[in-house]
C-alpha cells in the first residue's frame, strides 16, 4: 500500500487544545440544548405572534438607540481618557468600568436612585417634563449604561495606541483639532470602534436586569425580547426557548454581517504591493 506523504501542519500542543475544547463545550453545549429542545413545530406561529414581533421591534430600536447614544458620548469619553491628563483620572476610569462588574439589577436600582422620580436628578428631570422610568427612553438609557464600557474601553485602548504623528501631520496641514479627530483619529481607530460597537450593541440587545429594574416591563413600551423571554419562562417555557432562539439568530446574523462588512476592508489587501 502506498501512502502519500501528508503536508506538515503546525502542531498544536494538547495542553492548549484540551482547555480550548473545554471552553467550546461549555459555550456550545447550552446552545445545543436550546436548539435540541426547541419545539420546532411551534416556531413559526410563535415568531409571528404580535407580542413577540413587538418585543423584537422594541429590542432592535432600543439596542441601536443605545449603540448610538454610546457612540455619541462614549467616543469623546474614550478620547478624554486616552489623551487628557486630569486629576482623578484613575477614579473616572474605574467608574467607567463599574457597569461591567455591577450586577445589572443593582445598576437598574442605581439608575432609579439617579434618574427616578425621587432620584438625585429627579426634580430636574421633572421640571423639564422628562420621565424616564416606564418609558422606552428609560430602556435605552438602561441599555446604554451597561453597554457603554465595552465601547469606551475598546476605543480608549485604540486611541492610546495610536501613532500621534498622523494627527500632528494633519494639524500642520491645516486641520483644527476637531477636524483632525474626525478625519484622522476616528478613521484610524475604526476597527476598534466597530469591534467595541458590536460588543456594546450585543450587550444592549441581551440586557435584562437593568432594563426591567429601571424601565419596568410593559409590552410595546419597555418589554424587550429578554424581558419577554424571562416572563414567558414562568408561564410557557417552550415559547421562551423559541424566542431565545430568535434573539440568538438576530444577534448572530448582525454580528457576522458586521464583521464581514466593516472589519475586513480595513485590513490591507495582501498581494497588492508592487
Amino acid at each position, binding site marked *: 500500500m502506498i501512502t502519500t506523504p501528508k503536508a506538515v501542519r503546525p502542531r498544536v500542543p494538547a495542553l492548549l487544545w484540551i482547555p480550548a475544547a473545554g471552553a467550546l463545550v461549555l459555550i456550545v453545549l447550552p446552545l445545543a440544548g436550546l436548539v435540541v429542545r426547541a419545539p420546532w413545530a411551534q416556531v413559526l406561529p410563535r415568531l409571528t405572534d404580535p407580542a413577540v414581533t413587538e418585543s423584537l421591534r422594541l429590542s432592535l430600536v432600543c439596542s441601536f438607540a443605545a449603540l448610538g447614544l454610546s457612540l455619541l458620548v462614549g467616543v469623546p469619553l474614550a478620547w478624554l481618557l486616552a489623551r487628557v491628563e486630569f486629576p482623578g483620572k484613575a477614579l473616572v476610569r474605574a467608574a467607567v468600568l463599574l457597569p461591567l462588574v455591577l450586577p445589572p439589577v443593582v445598576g437598574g436600582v442605581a439608575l432609579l436612585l439617579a434618574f427616578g422620580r425621587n432620584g438625585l436628578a429627579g426634580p430636574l428631570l421633572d421640571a423639564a417634563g422628562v420621565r424616564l422610568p416606564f418609558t422606552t427612553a428609560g430602556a435605552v438609557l438602561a441599555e446604554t449604561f451597561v453597554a457603554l464600557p465595552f465601547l469606551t474601553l475598546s476605543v480608549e485602548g485604540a486611541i492610546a495606541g495610536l501613532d500621534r*504623528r*498622523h494627527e*500632528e*501631520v*494633519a*494639524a*500642520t*496641514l*491645516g*486641520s*483644527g*483639532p476637531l*477636524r*483632525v479627530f474626525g*478625519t*484622522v483619529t476616528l*478613521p*484610524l481607530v*475604526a476597527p476598534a470602534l466597530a469591534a467595541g460597537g458590536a460588543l456594546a450593541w450585543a450587550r444592549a440587545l441581551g440586557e435584562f436586569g437593568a432594563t426591567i429594574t429601571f424601565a419596568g416591563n410593559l409590552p410595546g413600551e419597555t418589554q424587550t425580547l429578554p424581558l419577554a423571554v424571562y416572563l414567558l419562562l414562568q408561564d410557557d417555557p417552550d415559547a421562551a426557548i423559541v424566542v431565545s432562539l430568535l434573539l440568538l439568530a438576530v444577534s448572530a446574523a448582525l454580528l457576522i454581517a458586521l464583521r464581514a462588512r466593516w472589519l475586513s476592508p*480595513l485590513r*490591507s*489587501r495582501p498581494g*497588492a*504591493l*508592487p
Partner: protein
Amino acid sequence: MKGLSARLSGYLEAELDVPAGETVAVVGPNGAGKTTLLRALAGLPARSAADLTLDGERVTDLPPHLRAAGYVPQDGGLFPHLSAVRNVAYGLRARGTSRQQARTVAQDWLNRLGVAEFAARRPAELSGGQAQRVALARALAVRPRLLLLDEPLSALDVTARAGVRHALRTHLAEYPGVCLIVTHDPVDALALANRMLVLEDGKVAQDASPGDVTRAPRSAWVARLLGRNAYPGTADDGGIVLDDGFRLVTADPLPGNGPALAVIHPEDVALYRSRPEGSPRNTWPARVELVTPVGTRLRVATRGTGGGPDAVAEITPAAAADLTLAEGVPIWVTIKATEVTLTPL
C-alpha cells in the same frame, strides 16, 4: 522681511535667521535636538519653545494648523486610511478647497513628483521611495511658508534615495519658502542645502555654508562624519592638549589658547611597523582594529595603546602589503605637525 526668524529655548538653545528661498540642512548626532527644532517650529509639542516669525508675522502663539508650516516626519507619515491622492488633497480640503479642485491639484502634485500612477494606492501598497514622494507632494501642495523635512532619505535604499534626492533638489530649488531638512548624510546636505546647521547637545555647533563646514568642521561629530580624524581639546602654544591628556603638535598654532578641535585627514596619517626615527613629533603606538577597502585605497582604523588617541589612516594596498597589516597587529601612528589643523570652538 521674507523668511524665518526664530529663537529657541529649552532643551535646544538656538537662534536662527533664514531668508526665504534658502534650504538649511540640519545635522548632528542623535539627541542633538534636530527633531526638537523641527517640531518646535511646526508648533507641535516639543522639548523646546520657539519664538517664531515667518515673513514678518509673529506666529509664536499660533497652533500648528494656523502656522502654515509643512512638516514631513521621518517615514512620511502618510495617513494609512487614505489613498495617495486623498493624502495629498487632505491639506487643501482642510483649507476649504472644494473636493473636485483639491483632487485636481493633488493629482498635479503627484505628477510633478513622478508618482501619478500610484494615486489610487493606499500607503501600505507604496514602496518607501514612493511614499516619501507622496508625503512631499502632500506638504508642498498647501504651499507652506516653511517646510520641515525630518530625515526624508534615511529609510530608503540606495536607488530610491538617489531618485528622491533628485526630486527634492528639483522642487526645493523652485520652492519660495524656507526649508529645513534634517539629515545625517553629508552628501544629502551638500546636494540639497545652501546652508548647514550643525547641532550638538542642544546647541548650535556650526552654522555655515556646506563648503565651509566640510573644509573646517567645528564639531568632532561632523568631522568624523566627513571621514576625518577629529579630536576636541584645549589649544596651547604650539599645539593642543586633547581631552584625554595626549598632546598634538601643530605647525600652525592658534593665536589664543582655549577650546579647539584638531582635524587630520586620514591620508595624512602614516603607519610604521617600528618606531620611526627623525622628524615627526606626533607619534604613538597603536593596534590595528579594522581594515576596509575604500575605492582603490585601504582604510585602517587603529586604537591607541600608549595613551595616544584612536586614529583612521588611508593607505595604498601596496603600502599595506609592505606593512603586512592585519587586525590586532601592533603599529606606530605618525602625523606631521603641518597636517594638524586647529579650529577654535
